[in-house]
């Protein structure tokens, strides 16, 4: 395989972000000289949200000459000053504006779910970048559960390969799903991860290093990882991939404006034609509504905020919310089960060193009828910092003196987790709550309840990782049940009565509004979603750019 020989030396084409960055400063280059469009100037594309999906889309169409404005409610980060090597000090990276959670298994949000600011949630995501499996696109046909996508793995494959070079992704050759290799070699791993690997080996479970979007070698002006372990607090080094370093520098160089501190309130619709005319937004600290005029609008605000914005965009022509004539907006929101178990070992492992994402297994990804449930889960090592570790100890039922005792033992522990594929349900849904945010907009309410298949999957997978710990020689085990990775809420499908957007991610019934973030996914497999969200955005970008400017 030729690509293996070239590992680490092949950069992406048509994206100069890595060269535009400064070796010594972390600021997004080009902020000072960024083009500013007038509200009344009808731009080609107005994107809501400078996250994983929105940023890639902007970079792609800007390269094709489109004039683009991104509205981003969060701040324009200056990482040297704004980001810290500290858990509690990273509070402002997360979306901590209020959301209401309900259902029988409410999903806790905050630092565990999404970000707010230029770069979106990937600023503080862990860094795992696996692809979905080909089967993820046809779970209904193959397993009789979930939903089929209107597109297949082959439609995304070239975009996976491109985005993997842009991040760049480092890892061993991947034996699962559609087997592939990575542009960068695997990182060295910590003793905490090695312990898990040895346990898995004893049980005959295959582990692989990676795949992580973390520089391991020479990559333009992006430094090598320094194994400091604060990936979930924002990488102050620029080693970890996020749109902030992988796509937005190139986007700015191609005349994209990122308008930070601007909350999109609704997509404006010309009532007679049903076409969008732009996005109404509010600047921080200013009650005046502004309208950015645009020929095309793309909503990329994350699986909670995207449905919220569509529902808040109700108008005479779309009285139940934009794209919601068939009552599909906000439905089928999914999370992955993300239980973690920690094991105690005789030696000091000091799991806070090295990035939290290190090694993983997809041996259990596909359906195995003998397990008693459909679909599966993946296994990944993680490594909580002290506050995260305290939450883990609390979840096992300890407080007071017992909790302090476990906390003092921190350096002897190593942690492993799962990602369960939980199935899409119509009532797992984002709606509008009665409560309003400081802009006067109704906040989102997210109801979530587990199904029987979900519960069986979670129980089975927890046993597998606990067995790995025991095989590794763990002297004590602590477990926490939790969830991660929201997707869905504006899913793609074959018809308006089963989806919100078509295979080209365009809202049913609205000719010039697209959705371009995690909310488009009809299923989510057991893979972390960011790479797939970027690949989908890359595909949409190619589609829009194909016919030139609108």
């Amino acid at each position, binding site marked *: 395989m030729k690509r293996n020989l070239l590992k680490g030396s092949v950069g992406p084409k048509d994206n100069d972000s890595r060269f535009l960055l400064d070796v010594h400063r972390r600021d997004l280059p080009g902020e000072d000289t960024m083009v500013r469009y007038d509200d009344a100037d009808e731009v080609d594309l107005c994107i809501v949200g400078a996250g994983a999906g929105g940023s890639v889309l902007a970079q792609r169409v800007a390269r094709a000459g489109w004039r683009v404005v991104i509205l981003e409610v969060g701040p324009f980060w200056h990482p*040297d000053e704004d*980001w*810290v*090597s*500290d*858990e*509690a*000090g990273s509070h402002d990276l997360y*979306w*901590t504006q*209020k*959301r209401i*959670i*309900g259902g029988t298994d*409410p999903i806790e*949000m*905050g630092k565990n779910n999404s970000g707010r600011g230029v770069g979106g949630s990937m600023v503080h995501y862990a860094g795992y970048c696996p692809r979905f499996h080909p089967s993820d696109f046809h779970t209904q046909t193959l397993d009789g559960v979930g939903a089929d996508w209107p597109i297949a793995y082959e439609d995304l494959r070239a975009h996976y390969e491109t985005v993997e070079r842009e991040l760049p992704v480092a890892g061993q050759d991947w034996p699962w799903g559609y087997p592939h290799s990575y542009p960068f070699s695997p990182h060295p791993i*910590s*003793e905490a991860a*090695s312990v898990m690997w040895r346990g898995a080996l004893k049980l005959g479970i295959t582990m692989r290093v990676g795949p992580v979007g973390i520089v391991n070698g020479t990559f333009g002006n992006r430094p090598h990882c*320094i*194994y*400091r*372990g*604060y990936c979930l607090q924002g990488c*102050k*080094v620029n080693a970890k991939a996020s749109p902030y370093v992988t796509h937005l520098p190139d986007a700015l160089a191609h005349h994209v404006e990122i308008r930070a501190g601007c909350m999109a309130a609704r997509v404006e619709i010309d009532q007679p034609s049903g076409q969008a005319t732009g996005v109404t937004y509010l600047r921080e600290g200013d009650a005046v509504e502004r309208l950015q005029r645009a020929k095309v609008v793309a909503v990329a605000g994350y699986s909670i905020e995207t449905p919220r914005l569509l529902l808040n965009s109700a108008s005479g022509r779309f009285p139940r919310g934009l794209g919601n004539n068939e009552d599909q907006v906000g439905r089928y929101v999914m999370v992955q089960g993300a239980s973690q178990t920690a094991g*105690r070992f*005789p030696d*000091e*492992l*000091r799991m*806070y*060193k*090295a990035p939290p994402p290190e090694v993983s297994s997809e041996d259990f990804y596909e359906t195995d009828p003998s397990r008693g449930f459909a679909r599966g889960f993946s296994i990944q090592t993680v490594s909580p910092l*002290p506050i995260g*570790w*305290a*939450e883990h100890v*609390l979840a*096992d*039922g*300890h*407080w*007071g*003196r*017992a*909790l*302090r*005792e476990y*906390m*003092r*033992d*921190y*350096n002897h522990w190593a942690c492993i987790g799962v990602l369960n594929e939980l199935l899409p349900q119509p009532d797992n849904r984002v709606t509008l709550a009665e409560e309003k945010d400081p802009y006067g907009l109704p906040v989102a309410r997210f*109801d979530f309840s587990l199904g029987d298949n979900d519960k069986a999957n979670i129980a089975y997978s927890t046993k597998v990782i606990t067995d790995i710990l025991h095989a590794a020689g763990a*002297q*004590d*085990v*602590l477990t926490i049940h939790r969830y991660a990775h929201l997707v869905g809420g504006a899913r793609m499908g074959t018809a308006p009565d089963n989806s919100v957007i078509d295979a080209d991610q365009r809202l049913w019934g609205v000719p010039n509004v697209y959705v371009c973030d995690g909310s488009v996914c009809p299923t989510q497999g057991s893979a972390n979603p960011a790479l797939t969200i970027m690949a989908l955005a890359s595909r949409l970008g190619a589609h829009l750019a194909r016919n030139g400017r609108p």
Partner: protein
Amino acid sequence: MGRDLSKPDHLPNLRPGREPPHSSWLPLQRRGITPQMIGRYPDYDVLDSADTWDDATAKVVNARLHVPTELRFFSVGEVATLRAFCNVCVAQDGEPRVPVVEMIDERLAAGRLDGYQYADMPDDRDTWHVVLAGLDEVAEARYGKATFAACELETQEAIVAQLADAQLSGGSWDSLNVKRAWSVCMRMILAAFYAHPWAWNEIGFGGPAYPRGYMRLGPISTLEPFERPGATDEDPVREAPELKG
């Protein structure tokens, strides 16, 4: 005599009643400060490496050493119970204490919340007021004391155990989901306590690592030159062989 730290016999899950041993098996801190001056790394002070931290991080961490003592969010009448409650939750039974109360007050006053609210719960800020009122009600109704703060430590621990097990009901407790109220409070208490460098000393955490980074990932060693291995309660002078007999 000290314990063998490679063994797990001090861990609550492996002991009767899930109770840890008395803290007297732990060494007293010899360098820097830990909460109650106990810990497992008596010769390690994370603040010794503060000069290697980037400015933004150093500013945020150092501010925790100088938290304003004036409370803005909680009322005067709530403070005694709040303090007693926070002490019990993280077993701070003596000085020096991580100023958990002040750190939480600062967060709540600034409205820095976690970003979600259960549909069957009030706003986190209201939850705190309800929990404190509820603790006083239990102290009075079941134990005949004016407030939670006025109870003996054992009584306070018994009440908190009931809160942790969602066993409290009646009065204020009926206005919220008790299990969730416990998690709202504990999340905030733990986020404050384990944000403090004294707590990092206690657990031997290496702390902020930019721009320096970590190099020793194992297997040969997991200790950087500035880190120290765990220790038990041996006194290095008393235990030195040449001084024995």
